[in-house]
């Protein structure tokens, strides 16, 4: 299996934020993780990407046990993520935000004599074009609109050339039009790079449109999983998550 989580556990004080979660992702799939607010989606992302360490269980990526490894190591192995709450480099320009990721991806972090701004210009600019921020290249990231900061968020993750891309609510806090646009961008980029995706998203229409497989989380547990049609017809999912809405 390309990616697999087995019996993962994480508690915060008395709260079991991740409760015996097992899931798997097939290579090339767009896999969705859904669930109501506070279900533990971000916590699961944090466990997978090394932001926090699990109490028990295993995370296996391309046959290798990556449980408890640091975020840096896991990113190096090919899992890049974007954040639900914008987490960019605010006082660097958009170009520089992508640049630091590209330089690190090229393992040049300890190169101390090349002029950084002359390295991989085409690659960085093509990343900027891909995420639709080429015209804002010289703006400080902190001065971008929220929607564009979320784009940059995804751009930084993609600059790491991941094999598994974990997107934690890439459209949160966006207007309906912005949402549509960024989703088009993301869909295009997924096709272009061919990376496997773990996507967390609240908009069910989006989920049903793009997903190959869906995992449903509630109170830290996986309560359902299946293809789009499985989930659409799952009574339990309707009751707990869709609230009867069709």
């Amino acid at each position, binding site marked *: 299996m390309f990616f697999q989580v087995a019996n993962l556990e994480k508690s915060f004080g008395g709260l079991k934020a991740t409760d015996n979660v097992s899931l798997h992702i097939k290579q090339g799939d767009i896999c969705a993780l859904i669930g109501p607010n506070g279900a533990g989606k971000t916590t699961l992302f944090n466990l997978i990407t090394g932001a926090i360490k699990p109490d028990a269980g295993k995370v296996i990526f391309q046959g290798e046990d990556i449980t408890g490894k640091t975020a*840096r190591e896991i990113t190096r192995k090919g899992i890049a993520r974007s954040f639900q709450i914008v987490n960019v480099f605010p006082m660097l320009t958009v170009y520089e935000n992508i640049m630091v990721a590209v330089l690190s991806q090229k393992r040049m972090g300890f190169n*101390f004599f090349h002029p950084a701004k002359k390295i991989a210009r085409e690659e960085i600019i093509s990343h900027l074009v891909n995420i639709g921020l080429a015209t804002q290249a010289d703006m400080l990231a902190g001065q971008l609109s929220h929607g564009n900061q979320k784009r940059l968020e995804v751009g930084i993750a993609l600059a790491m050339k991941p094999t598994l891309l974990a997107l934690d609510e890439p459209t949160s806090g966006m207007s309906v039009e912005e949402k549509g646009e960024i989703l088009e961008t993301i869909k295009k980029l997924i096709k272009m790079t061919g990376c496997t995706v773990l996507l967390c998203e609240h908009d069910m229409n989006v989920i049903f449109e793009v997903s190959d497989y869906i995992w449903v989380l509630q109170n830290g547990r996986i309560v359902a999983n299946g293809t789009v049609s499985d989930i659409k017809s799952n009574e339990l999912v309707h009751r707990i998550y869709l609230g009867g809405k069709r």
Partner: protein
Amino acid sequence: MRGKRSFVWAVGCIIAIFLIGGPFILPNFWTWVVIEIMVMSLAAMSVNFLLGYAGCLSFGHSAFYAAAAYATAIMMTKTGMNQYQVLLLAPLTAAILGAVIGLLVSRLYAFYYAIMTCAFAMIVWSIIRRLPGLTGGDTGIVGIQFTGLLNGMTNIYYFTLAVIILCGLILWVIGNSPLGWSLRAIRENPDRSAFISIDVIKQRCLALVISSFFCGVAGSLHVVYSFGAFPELAFWTKSGDFVTICILGGINSFLGPIVGSVALILLETMITSVTLYWPMVLGIIICAVVFFMPEGIMGFVKKFGWEKVNEQKS
């Protein structure tokens, strides 16, 4: 735009002429002052390398400055080593000390980083004072004479100038390299840096090692122009001077520490000749700068320089 560029060129040329002509243009007293300014600039640049790029505020650089100064003084007096070998080896002592301290503080941020580096400087200071056999205790090591290219004011002046320019260029290159940009990423957002596979702790440690090396070069030069090494060099207020200079000059500017050193030492030299209340005057000046020029002198020049030029153009 063109107006600004030619203005900068003109200022640059005047400064260059003054620096090159130095000892032949200036009276002896002021030549020594310029040497002091140059050495201080390098120390402040090393502090600002850490502060401006990596965002690490160190109050421990007096330790590196003193370590290299004492290494120079001890090697000059107690071993028969060639003076140039001494000047190459002494900054390495500072860098090694930087690596040791770096291993211990590189996980810390902000206030904790400043306090811990300060604490290490205090340890170094007390060690220096407790080892009179090696360091001369409270009196330090005095009367060190260099020869050849390092003998006499004019030679010392040009040697210092050459070393400072070389070190400045190296720091500039490192600052604009991928390493320099990784450090900026860490300064901006250490958490996110880990998610683009930057080794945050190693990089911050390396930044301290580089910084301590160049601070060590300054410390060695201190011995060349003052003919001695003294325990005050290790006292944490010396680190405070470096940081003050960075803030005065502007931490977000490469030239900030140089401008800050010029401003501070000129002010100090001029004010101490008229009043004994130099520390008080300095305090007032720092308050004023922080208040009216939060980005330091260079930040102020850049901001208003730019706006003025743009107004003229339109």
